[in-house]
């Protein structure tokens, strides 16, 4: 049984109760089969009158009621456990934050938290009750058999353990085989999906028809390999089936012979015949349910692995101080090194720099150089391994992250839009913003396309902004930043990546306005964006390799460079 899952179930009161009702109903229903057999044997042998059939019907009615209760409460247990686990996972996802999430495959997390947990249904509604039944009913049957007929009871007692023993033996020998087969199966599914996804590419190079043959070969190879393993794997069920049915024959034939000799009465004989299969049934059912629940166990393992990871997320106790002043702060990095778990090279290494209030800094350099990491450091998404970040002299770690972030306006490299109205997307960081505020923010971000949308600002964008272009999404994200007029620090991560020339010009113009009167740190690739800055810092392999602004007055340099830039463009045109 799954330890973590049991601990979770014990912690949730409602789940505990529902599970208890489920198990009790399952066990009671199993025990009622004994009563049913007793009544039926009595009626068939003529010991009871036909009136006993009324009692039999009543027992059946109660069993149906118990089955119903088991179904209802098993369903509640399953949804309860899934909800509890899901709520913990969701809270964990929030807690991990952008820094911690980077260590996971995001698609897998989404699937696991959503559909993945449904795999637990079979475990909770099938396997757990079957364990309870298997633990109680065979023993009850054995006790009754011993009371009724010693010889038959002994046969059942001897053959009964064969089922789990053979099951385990065959299971062990076929485990490796079946696991390999499962892997091959998922690889086959993957291969087919891969080919179908790549069909446009195959078509472009005239390889589509050729691949049809490959698909057939792979499927045929997979089938014959699977059948080879199944021939062995199904031996386990053959053995179990034979155990159960031969035991019944083993019980029935001697009983018949003893009836013939007159040493046994018919009621007992019929009772034994009816009860003997019920001793084996729960064990076999448990085995089947176990196999069906493996997927759920894997889902639970994956979920608890996420819950148990050591995120370097927020630490308790620390980070409660309010940021010192309201205006654009001075940000100072002192020998900061940032490492991501599982990566050898540091993302930032021994970086020391001071960003003065109101300075506009462009971070340049090739991808992977540490530019985004520097932004995430300022946002508090990642913590320095060594060194510290000071905001107006106060260590960033001591500050309340929410209060600090309230002073920031951030545009991510790939901003995420939510499946809600454009207006609500824009007021993400300022829930109280009026429609007028939103409109003004959009205007400032040059998001003039919004007016042309079917319902203007009330237009609901698709999941992840599906019905907007990359440039439009970028400008909505920029409007988000504009919708926080009180923010004093602007952090932009490549706001013009993936935009065509016209959209880029619009975004550059918007950014220039937004940066006015604020400290701005902009990760930039495109020259237009870089030109906005009065200081350029080049990062390479986590280190600052060039910094135009460190010792010199910002104003003078800027004038110089802009002049140079215009000279060159004139020449090209």
């Amino acid at each position, binding site marked *: 049984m799954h330890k973590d899952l049991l601990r979770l179930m014990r912690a949730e009161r409602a789940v505990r109760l529902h599970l208890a009702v489920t198990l009790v109903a399952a066990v009671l229903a199993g025990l009622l089969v004994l009563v049913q057999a007793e009544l039926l044997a009595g009626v068939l042998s003529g010991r009871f009158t036909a009136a006993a059939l009324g009692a039999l019907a009543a027992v059946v009615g109660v069993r149906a009621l118990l*089955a119903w209760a088991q179904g209802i409460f098993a369903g509640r247990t399953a949804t309860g456990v899934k909800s509890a686990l899901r709520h913990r996972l969701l809270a964990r996802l929030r807690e991990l934050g952008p820094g911690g999430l980077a260590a996971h495959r995001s698609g897998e997390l*989404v699937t696991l938290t959503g559909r993945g947990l449904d795999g637990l249904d079979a475990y909770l509604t099938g396997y757990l009750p079957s364990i309870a039944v298997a633990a109680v009913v065979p023993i009850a049957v054995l006790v009754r058999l011993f009371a009724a007929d010693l010889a038959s009871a002994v046969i059942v007692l001897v053959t009964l353990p064969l089922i789990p023993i053979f099951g385990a033996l065959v299971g062990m020998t076929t485990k490796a085989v079946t696991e390999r087969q499962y892997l091959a199966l998922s690889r086959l599914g993957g291969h087919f999906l891969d080919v179908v996804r790549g069909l446009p590419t195959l078509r472009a190079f005239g390889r589509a028809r050729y691949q049809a043959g490959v698909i057939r070969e792979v499927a045929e190879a997979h089938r014959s390999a699977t059948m080879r393993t199944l021939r062995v794997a199904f031996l386990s069920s053959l053995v179990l089936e034979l155990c159960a049915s*031969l035991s019944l024959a083993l019980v029935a034939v001697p009983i018949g012979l003893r009836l013939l000799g007159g040493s046994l009465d018919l009621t007992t004989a019929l009772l034994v015949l009816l009860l003997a299969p019920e001793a084996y049934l729960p064990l076999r059912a448990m085995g089947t349910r176990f196999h069906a629940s493996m997927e759920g166990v894997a889902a639970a393992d994956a979920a608890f692995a996420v819950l148990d990871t050591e995120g370097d997320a927020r630490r308790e106790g620390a980070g409660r101080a309010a940021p010192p002043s309201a205006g654009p702060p001075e940000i100072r990095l002192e020998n900061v090194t940032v490492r991501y778990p599982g990566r050898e090279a540091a993302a930032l290494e021994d970086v020391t720099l001071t960003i003065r209030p109101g300075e506009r800094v462009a971070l340049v350099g090739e991808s992977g150089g540490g530019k985004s990491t520097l932004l995430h450091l300022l946002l508090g998404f990642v913590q320095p391994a060594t060194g510290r970040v000071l905001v107006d002299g106060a260590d960033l770690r001591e500050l309340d992250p929410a209060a600090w972030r309230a002073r920031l306006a951030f545009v991510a490299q790939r901003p995420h839009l939510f499946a809600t109205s454009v207006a609500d997307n824009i007021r993400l960081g300022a829930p109280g913003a009026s429609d007028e505020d939103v409109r003004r923010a959009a205007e400032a971000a040059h998001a003039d396309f919004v007016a042309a949308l079917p319902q203007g600002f009330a237009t609901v964008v698709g999941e992840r902004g599906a019905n907007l272009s990359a440039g439009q999404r970028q400008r909505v994200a920029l409007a988000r930043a504009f919708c926080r007029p009180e923010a004093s620090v602007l952090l932009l991560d490549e706001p013009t990546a993936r935009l065509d020339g016209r959209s880029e010009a619009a975004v550059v113009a918007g950014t220039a306005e937004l940066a006015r009167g604020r400290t701005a740190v902009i990760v930039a690739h495109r020259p237009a964006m870089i030109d906005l800055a009065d200081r350029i810092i080049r990062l390479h392999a986590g280190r600052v390799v060039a910094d135009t602004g460190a010792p010199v007055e910002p104003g003078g340099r800027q004038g110089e460079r802009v002049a140079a830039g215009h000279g060159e463009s004139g020449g090209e045109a």
Partner: protein
Amino acid sequence: MGKRLVWAVLAGAAADLAGLGLIAAAAWLITRAAQQPPLAALSVAIVATRAFATGKGVFRYVERLTGHDVALRAQAGTREDLYGALIPPQRPRHGGADLLSRMVDDTEAVQDLLVRCLLPAAAAAVAGLAAVVVGLTILPLAALVLVAGLALAGLALPAGTAAAARRWAARIAPARAELAGRVADLVHGSADLAAYGADEAALRRAEAADEALAALERRQARVHAAALAGGTLLQGLTVAAVVLLAQGAQVGSVGTAVLALTALVSFEPVLPLAAAGERMAGITAALRRLREVRAAAPAVAEPAAPAPRPESPLTVEVEDLVVRHSPAPAGRETRPALDGVSLRLTPGRRVAIVGPSGAGKSTLLAALMRLVEPESGRVTVNGADVRDLAGDDVRTLMTGLTQDPYIFRTTLRDNLRLAGPDAGDERLRRAVDDARLGDWVERTGWDAELGEDGRTVSGGQLQRLALARALLYDPPVLLLDEPAEALDEETADRLMADLLDVTRDRTTLLVTHRLKGLESVDEVVVLEEGRVTQRGRHDELVAVPGYYRDLWESEVLTRR
């Protein structure tokens, strides 16, 4: 296939019959023995009991093997059919990659249909029938009751669960999608949420979505519970009724016992059908979707007797081409994607297509590659209308770097070689070098596994790999759709410069929105809203006001 299916059904029926026979023979043996006949009277029953006991296990084994074999063959067949239906160019579908993976999942439904629904149902029907026959020989009235009970449990109950499951699936699917969307917000939108202090609200929304889903699932559990209870009730009451009738009709203890136990056991293969009914809702939906895919008409019609493939050198002419992506989503604009475009590509000539996104640039390439059917106008190659050529032939002549190139889950070498199965290492290396991918390939290794499970490939590397494929394939007319997309500035500049170098004197159609270097192409065509608004050489176009000059100026401004 059909024969194998029959074998599987027979084996399953035999297993169920053996189970029935085992209990009937045992019941007969015991009750008859109680009447203390001579031993010889029992010998047949004794042998039968043992034979049925052995047979049950063996037949079950055979059933499971043949059943899985049939199912795997059926699934392979379904996949092959599906793939075959997808080979001709398709009209774009809504849903993209998700739709594809669902389609692939759907092919598993065939396996489920056989192993979990059809085979058990057929075997249960045979076993039920046998039980009824046994009943008929003993007491026809009891057999009638048994038929009623079995029909309710084996037909009405599964039909009910199937209908209920269908209804619930329709209600639960949106709740599931909502939850998935909110979880995705929390994961993919993590940075935006944290930076703007909106993570708490997003968490609440995800929790609310979970609760809505859980409430629906709790109510859905009633279907399953009711089916369980109904099955139990039907089995028990049928047995009780059969016994009552048998006793009333003075059938005798042997007949009554055989009737009762046969009735009891005949329900065992029938009761699981209610759960199969629940599963059926999903299976029929999957099969319907697959049928729809197969029934969809391909995007272009293939000629009955294709004209011979034109030989190089090729002159491609586009004459007054109109392409409409039909049908337009309800209420949306129905402007054609291409609205009367003409173009002439003579051997060795290079033409660049420039224009804002959505102008129809990629549609033009699709029309050349015979992936979309024009509404009017035509594309000819050496005078032959492409509609008279086999689609594959057209794509042999005109292809290259297409939109959304795909990296397969295989080695780097094989990913390249699909564009040149016979290419030797030397040619592979040249293509890779021309695409400016040489260093990366050296670092990564030719045998590195790429794709989903393997090494991740960045956007820029993917683009260059696709370019290397196009260069390796070396078609008579090279089509390049945004080759520098997703590259950083410096790499893009170098790549475009090299590309313009490599394609010198090759018939090339280049779609781009980067104008640097276009002075060297023979003609630039500006597409806006599906129409050619400007055409000429680079220096002619920058001299006159218009989209091209605007774009050029903003590009110059953004460059240093």
